[in-house]
């Protein structure tokens, strides 16, 4: 932790030396999208020409595409010309000055989640100079990473300072033509994270957007690129369990992971965006493309996600198992309550020999929510001895919700072994009565049973995150029974 108060002061002051934030503060683009908007966006960010050209290529391709409609979700048409593709971060003067000015309901949730006091202010968007602690922590982390040679910075900074790396890897996992939302993201992405772990380096700490300076206002089109060079290890934590303040309804993020030979990437997400009210009003539409490429032999990519927020979640973190003996994992808990809709799952594409993948998906539906698992396991002809194990469990709370499972399997090599197990269960009256007869309230009993159901996934989360995730689940399902 940071030392005395003069340290803190100097660190805080140093933050203001970062030109990036102040550079863009004066600009904002009117709603609408055309090539002019993209050129302006790129210019505001001071991007090199390759970046602008890539954005334009993506935009031109996007114009030829149609919004997908195969997912098990329903929403009114999105007006892409009604969105402002660049808005300056709110200046500190517009932000709440202290926690007293923040919505008490939000604070109540922080309290239930056990978020430390000094973090609450930052999460609620209180002006940052009031929050010394988290800034100093973040800056200390940065120094330590630099020592290990790890690059961890905002995407827009990487585009300028690490252009050759960005140019080499950007779009190499999720090409700009990939799908409607990813293509849109490629044209207009606002910011995000960039991570590079050098050869043989074991990243000395969990990397977290939580601690990334500038994490606020990455906007609705976030872009993340993580490269683990040969023999390196990294664990990356996205999001946080606290509900995020966000005025944008549409989110279309792209995450690309690249694991070279013997490298390992563990990517954990806790997503808790505003799900809308009980009647489905408001709420975030979350259309995300996340894909990892196990490019080198013996590499490993592991996705763990806990999805409780958003009105609509459309998300399939996937692994392309190219390298021999590479391993892909997907552990997911997706909760849908009230009117939420979730269509989520994974794709495991086996290309290399002896590649292995594991899928554990836990879907929980409550209220009138619809929860779908959609997964693809594809074994290519050259993927001799490929192995997959899929376990897909759904838990229903109440009578008006739905769980759907859409598993796809394409096996083109006779030596492959693919296993799929699926269950659907309800929290039974008997289970509830049993717990209540032992003095445990109905609400606590539901939480206990749900957490038990998710245990295999929570086990994969970093320790302190796992505890928060449990609390989060409890908050998300409040009032789901009874």
């Amino acid at each position: 932790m940071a030392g005395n108060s003069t340290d803190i002061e100097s660190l805080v002051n140093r933050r203001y030396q970062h030109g990036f934030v102040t550079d863009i503060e004066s600009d904002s683009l009117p709603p609408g999208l055309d090539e002019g908007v993209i050129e302006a966006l790129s210019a505001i960010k001071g991007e090199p020409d390759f970046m602008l050209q890539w954005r334009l290529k993506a935009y031109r391709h996007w114009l030829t595409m149609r919004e997908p409609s195969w997912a098990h979700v329903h929403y009114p048409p999105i007006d892409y010309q009604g969105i402002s593709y660049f808005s300056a971060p709110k200046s500190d003067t517009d932000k709440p000055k202290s926690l007293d000015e923040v919505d008490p309901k939000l604070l109540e949730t922080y309290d239930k989640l056990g978020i430390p006091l000094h973090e609450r202010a930052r999460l609620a968007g209180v002006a940052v100079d009031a929050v010394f602690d988290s800034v100093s922590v973040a800056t200390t982390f940065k120094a330590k990473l630099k020592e290990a040679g790890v690059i961890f910075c905002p995407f827009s900074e990487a585009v300028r300072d690490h252009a050759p790396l960005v140019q080499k890897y950007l779009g190499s996992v999720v090409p700009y033509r990939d799908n409607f939302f990813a293509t849109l993201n490629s044209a207009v992405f606002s910011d995000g994270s960039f991570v590079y772990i050098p050869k043989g380096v074991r990243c000395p700490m969990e990397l977290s957007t939580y601690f990334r300076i500038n994490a606020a206002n990455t906007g609705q089109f976030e872009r993340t690129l993580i490269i683990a060079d040969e023999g390196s290890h990294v664990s990356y934590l996205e999001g946080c369990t606290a509900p995020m303040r966000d005025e944008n309804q549409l989110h279309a993020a792209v995450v690309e992971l690249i694991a070279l030979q013997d490298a390992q990437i563990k990517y954990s997400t806790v997503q808790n965006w505003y799900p809308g009210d009980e009647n489905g009003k408001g709420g975030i539409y979350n259309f995300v493309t996340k894909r990892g490429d196990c490019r080198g032999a013996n590499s490993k990519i592991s996705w763990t996600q806990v999805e409780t927020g958003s009105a609509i979640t459309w998300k399939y973190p996937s692994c392309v198992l190219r390298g021999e003996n590479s391993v892909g994992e997907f552990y997911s808990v997706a909760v849908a309550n009230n009117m939420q809709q979730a269509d989520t799952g994974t794709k495991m594409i086996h290309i290399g020999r002896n590649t292995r993948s594991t899928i554990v998906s836990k879907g929980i539906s409550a209220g009138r929510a619809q929860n779908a698992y959609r997964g693809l396991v594809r074994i290519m002809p050259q993927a001799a001895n490929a192995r997959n194990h899929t376990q897909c469990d759904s838990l229903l709370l109440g009578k008006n919700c739905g769980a759907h499972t859409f598993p796809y399997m394409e096996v083109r090599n006779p030596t492959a072994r693919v296993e799929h197990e699926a269950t659907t269960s309800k929290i039974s009256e008997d289970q509830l009565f049993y717990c209540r007869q032992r003095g445990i309230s109905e609400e606590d009993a539901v939480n206990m049973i749900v957490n038990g159901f998710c245990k295999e996934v929570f086990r994969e989360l970093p320790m302190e995150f796992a505890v928060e995730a449990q609390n989060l689940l409890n908050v998300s399902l409040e009032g789901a029974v009874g």
Partner: protein
Amino acid sequence: MTAMLEIRDLHTTIGDTTILDGLSLTVGSGEVHAIMGPNGSGKSTLAQVIAGHESHVVTAGTVTFFGRNLLELSPEERAREGIFLGFQYPVEIPGVNNAYLLKAAVNARRRHMAQPEIDAFEFLKLAREKMALLDMDPGFLNRGVNEGFSGGEKKRNEILQMAMLEPRLAILDETDSGLDIDALKAVAKGVNAMCSPDRAIVLVTHYQRLLNYIEPDHVHVLQKGRIVRSGDKTLALELEQRGYEWIREVVNG
């Protein structure tokens, strides 16, 4: 003095069917009662109604616990007041740690009695002591609640929970069914160790066998939703010899 449990003229239905039909029963502190009766006579219903199972509707009668109207309390409130039901078919709760549930239960009761909560070390120590008494493997604590337990293991687990919760009134619903003789003895030992002047135990059982190991002060025979005969332990033996048909004849004249 007020009795611990006082049931007067209790009538209940489930759906359109009447189950308990004018049942009265008084249980005092320190007593061991056995409720016997043929299948379908309402034994398990009685146990569930006392515990507050919501599928049963009480249409008439009263149930008081130390003078307090039990029927207005939720199942969890009754449990915290010290009413324990040992289930005939303990349900499996996959993924929920046995120790976790048990500790949450113990602490729910302690909070209710304004006692300090038990910490993890204290809890483990206490649980190990009680498990030794029941010949249970300590590994039990780390398994999912009843998950993959054999019939005997489930029943021992119920007795372990009872021992940890130290209820004032323990109702054991067919705890003896499906047990081999060793398990039966272990369960009986656990129950006998619980007998005390400020606790009452109600054994719901179909057979006399359990009563060879746990001696009741009172035996009641249930038929068609009411108690048709009460007596001491000799009644159980007589039943065993003559069968429930005998009671039916006696009652119907």
